[in-house]
């Protein structure tokens, strides 16, 4: 599986992407670094999960990938073609990268019927009227809605139905890459399962590559081939999904995974890592390693020097001084090599 993935050209290559917002705090102008020097690649047909707490820059990264926000530095390449830094995105990129939004309620124009909303991208791309109707009906059917719903209005639909419509709108252009920004987070658990399974079916049916963003670790594990863990705008760990859930390396990943509530009463709260402190403000991130203020293993070096991405294991990168040959913990390094 890994060899096939490395041979195929990556459909999405994110290289050193940085996005800073300017804001005002009182009289001061401040810069919020929402995404800071993020790099990864996604092979065609796979799913990259991005996890992290709210406010860690997941949604900003999603919008940079699809081109709703322009990156301040770095490049996003779609199948080798870079997204333009300014000006219009080329038609292939528009047609091949789409996004499903978080809130099923505000992602649909309340004045437009379902058919109008789904058909809008086709209309923009100049598809003739009869073809629009045919493709709208087809995609509605694919997401499991009766084609008669195309004349209905968003207020008549349930949350799950709306999210199906949102997915249909993203799929109607037959994209190659779909960014799912917390696409199931606003739904009930039972509906969530339906939509997640629908997404998996559509992935094989439409030959899609997903970037699946969520704070829900269980759903990410279920969906993803690879996972990137984000903390305060940076990717701190990147590896295969199974690897992350079996043997997370970064202390933040360990903290996240140990905080998943378990249904087994004997295991309750036993191995929760102590969370020492609040999330620092992205207005003023800590020096060196951004996680050091909450890290139970913080060392002196962590305040002085930002850790680089280290390939601690094959296909498993982590950005932490603990795994650095120079400053790190020999026992930990040995443990990763020993496996």
């Amino acid at each position, binding site marked *: 599986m890994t060899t096939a993935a490395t041979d195929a050209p990556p459909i999405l290559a994110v290289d050193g992407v940085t996005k800073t917002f300017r804001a005002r705090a009182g009289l001061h102008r401040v810069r919020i670094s929402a995404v800071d020097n993020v790099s990864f690649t996604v092979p065609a047909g796979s799913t990259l999960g991005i996890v992290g707490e709210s406010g860690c820059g997941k949604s900003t990264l999603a*919008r940079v990938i*699809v*081109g*709703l926000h322009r990156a301040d530095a770095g490049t996003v390449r779609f199948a080798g073609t870079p997204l333009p830094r300014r000006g*219009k*995105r080329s*038609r292939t990129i*528009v047609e091949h990268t*789409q*996004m499903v*939004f*978080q*809130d099923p*309620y*505000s*992602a*649909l*124009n*309340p*004045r*437009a*019927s379902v058919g109008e*909303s789904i058909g*809008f*991208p086709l209309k*923009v*791309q100049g598809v003739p009227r009869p073809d629009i109707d045919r493709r709208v009906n087809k995609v509605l*059917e694919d997401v499991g809605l*009766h*084609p*008669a*719903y195309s*004349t*209905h*209005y*968003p*207020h*008549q639909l349930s949350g799950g139905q709306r999210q199906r419509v*949102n997915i249909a*709108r993203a799929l109607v*252009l037959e994209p190659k890459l779909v960014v799912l920004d917390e696409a199931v987070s606003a739904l009930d658990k039972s509906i969530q399962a339906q939509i997640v399974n629908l997404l998996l079916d559509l992935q094989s049916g439409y030959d899609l590559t997903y970037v699946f963003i969520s704070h829900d670790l269980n759903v990410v594990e279920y969906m993803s081939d690879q996972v990137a863990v984000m903390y305060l705008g940076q990717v701190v760990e990147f590896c295969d999904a199974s690897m992350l859930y079996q043997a997370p390396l970064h202390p933040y990943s360990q903290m996240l995974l140990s905080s998943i509530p378990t249904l087994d009463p004997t295991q309750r709260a036993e191995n929760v890592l102590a969370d020492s402190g609040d999330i620092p403000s992205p207005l003023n991130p800590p020096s060196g390693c951004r996680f050091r203020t909450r890290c139970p293993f913080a060392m002196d070096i962590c305040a002085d020097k930002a850790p680089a991405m280290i390939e601690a294991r094959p296909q498993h990168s982590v950005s932490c001084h603990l795994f650095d040959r120079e400053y790190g913990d020999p026992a930990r390094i040995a443990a990763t090599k020993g496996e």
Partner: protein
Amino acid sequence: MTELTADDLRERWYQSEVSVPPISYWSVVRRRFLRNKLGVAALIVLILIIAAAVFAPWICPYDPLVGKPADRLQNIFSFSTGHPLGTDEQGRDMLTRVLYGGRLSLLAGFVPTLVAAVVGTIIGTWAGLVRGAVGAILMRIMDMLYAFPAILLAIAVGSSLGAGLSNTIIAVSIVFIPPVSRIAESETRKIVTSEYVEAARLSGASRIRILRTQLLPNVLNEIIVYSSGLVGVAMIIAASLSFLGLGSRPPTPEWGYMLESLQGDIYVVPAVVAVPGIFIFLTSVTFNTASDALREAMDTRLG
């Protein structure tokens, strides 16, 4: 028993009914409005007043401008002489004059509201879209105008333009543009960052297309609700300007001017003098009631 193929199943699914029929936003609004009895009653009274004013030349047997001085200042309910609402100081039939006057008063209510809604929406949407320095300057100018009390600003504009109904309409329009543009601006800023506009941007739509298909229909919603409440206020301001001699010129009947010309006779026939005032009151109250009902009907957090 024969095996069902996927196509058969799809065929069945297509044949099956979706239990709810499609309901557009406006049909929801209509249904909700009709449930509001007070609002419907106000709307009916309003339609009667408007219809009577519009069809005044066909309803009224008298000339609104020329009266018989011999019949002057008859009290209301003078059915025997054929003047159900009495006559004014020149012997003109009050009912005729009120209905003719209603045409101008209603015109002075509707036209400025319409003008302000259009101009205010353009200014507000523009400011909300471009933001930055241009947007800030536009909105601060609007705030400046908004800081004046409405009636004072109308008097100032009206007196500098000179008397006359068209100048009154211009003055009231200017008074109403700032509040409309403020609503359009805040609504625009809210909608521009919404996810459905982002989705439209993602599909490669041009700014004009997004403005037309996504933004305006939703901004106009708020503007319609707000403007419907302005008609009654516009009428009162226009009547006040006429009362002060800045509105319609004599002898053209207009409710504010009629009040003013009759005020000397308040001790002779108080009921007659009150007639134009009652009409101003009735029209603006019904307008506001109907507008409130419309607001309630439209303020459905449907989307």
